[in-house]
């Protein structure tokens, strides 16, 4: 009943814009570059399905039209702070056809979560995002390759003023996922759990009074700067924040 209801509700969305397709990411063992005291070493990642490309402005437009409580003129400031969808021409329309195809940015974590929830999906956990993004075009884990690391880092050196490419324009990685690197930052469901100070020097002295329990976090692999920059950015954000380079994609659990 509920599934049928969801389908009936989602059908009108499909008419407005084709939702990005999902790609299966198989289960595997994976060592995050973050060092968790409570869970050292590689861990098993369950299989999941991930959107093949970031959610575009057109995709998000369809969502906003069917869920007007997420329009910039209606949304609670608690759920989307200053700057939410400010790049659009109107409250429910991107500024141009070109912008419609670009990854949506200026979206808060609450808005991204609500979008995924409406698709019967969710935001990826950090570990899932990192696992999927460790792949290059041929290998599922390219992180040991200095050339690949350099390629990713090069993006961070580019000025942020250049227009975004269309979502999905990048080459697919070994799973068939596009644009995990080189286009936008992406929200994760647990961005607020990364608990990494933006300044890595603080990590030797976690503030025990502010946080309950152990589980201090540090960095296991200092060579993975590009990934660490993402962690620093994500952990510095509040859930209502949005930025001009922060978008998202959704994942679904595999049953």
């Amino acid at each position, binding site marked *: 009943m509920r599934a049928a209801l969801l389908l009936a509700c989602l059908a009108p969305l499909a008419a407005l814009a084709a939702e990005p397709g999902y790609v299966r990411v198989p289960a595997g063992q994976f060592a995050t570059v973050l060092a968790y005291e409570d869970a050292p070493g590689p861990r098993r990642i369950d299989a999941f399905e991930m959107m093949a490309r970031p959610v575009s402005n057109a995709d998000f437009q369809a969502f906003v039209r069917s869920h007007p409580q997420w329009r910039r003129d209606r949304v609670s400031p608690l759920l989307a702070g200053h700057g939410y969808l400010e790049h659009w021409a109107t409250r429910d329309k991107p500024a141009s056809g070109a912008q419609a195809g670009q990854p949506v940015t200026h979206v808060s*974590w609450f808005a991204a979560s609500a979008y995924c929830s409406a698709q019967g999906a969710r935001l990826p956990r950090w570990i899932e995002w990192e696992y999927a993004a460790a792949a290059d075009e041929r290998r599922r884990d390219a992180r040991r390759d200095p050339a690949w690391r350099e390629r990713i880092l090069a993006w961070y050196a580019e000025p942020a003023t250049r227009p975004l490419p269309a979502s999905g324009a990048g080459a697919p990685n070994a799973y068939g996922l596009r644009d995990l690197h080189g286009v936008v930052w992406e929200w994760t469901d647990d961005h607020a759990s990364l608990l990494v100070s933006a300044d890595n020097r603080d990590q030797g002295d976690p503030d025990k*009074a502010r946080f309950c329990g152990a589980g201090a976090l540090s960095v296991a692999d200092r060579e993975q700067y590009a990934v660490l920059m993402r962690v620093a950015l994500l952990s510095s954000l509040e859930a209502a924040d949005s930025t001009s380079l922060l978008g998202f994609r959704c994942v679904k659990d595999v049953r």
Partner: protein
Amino acid sequence: MNALHRLFCLLALAPAMAVAAAGTPPDSIFRVDPPMTDARMQHFALEDRRGHPQIVSMFYTSCAFTCPMLIDAIKGVRAELDPGERARLSITLVTLDPARDTPAKLARTAHERDLDPPAWTLAAPAARDVRLLAGLLGIRYRALADGDFNHTTALILLDAEGRIVARTERVGGRPDPAFVAAVRRALQ
């Protein structure tokens, strides 16, 4: 899609979205307000405390170190108030661990720590709404491998209309005087 169908879909797809009363300020938590279950197995929402200020925090009952301090800190703030003020201030403790913090478990903690209604409410949101609530309250947490949680320990003051008006992360020693002053102001 007709208007009725649209409304129906809105409700079906957004279970966490409360339908706030008219006149609720745009920045009120009551506009979002995920449904919870309290220690008496009753439905509970933050909006149930509308009309009175409340201190809200997130915790979990099996927490051995900081959460008892958190409760002591809230008791410390209450002790600074006169009886009339104390009677008008509600306390809402929301668990980060709804899987293990059943109503019975919440009730046991309430009993052991003398967290009696009507002043105190211990409540559990649906698992899918924990991050939403934590995001609204600016509380960061991570579930650890051993079942503990690493989380921000903070007292958040909501005014009678559900707006966040003060916050403190001071939980050891004397109550934060700025926070106590904010509580007094909200109670006036």
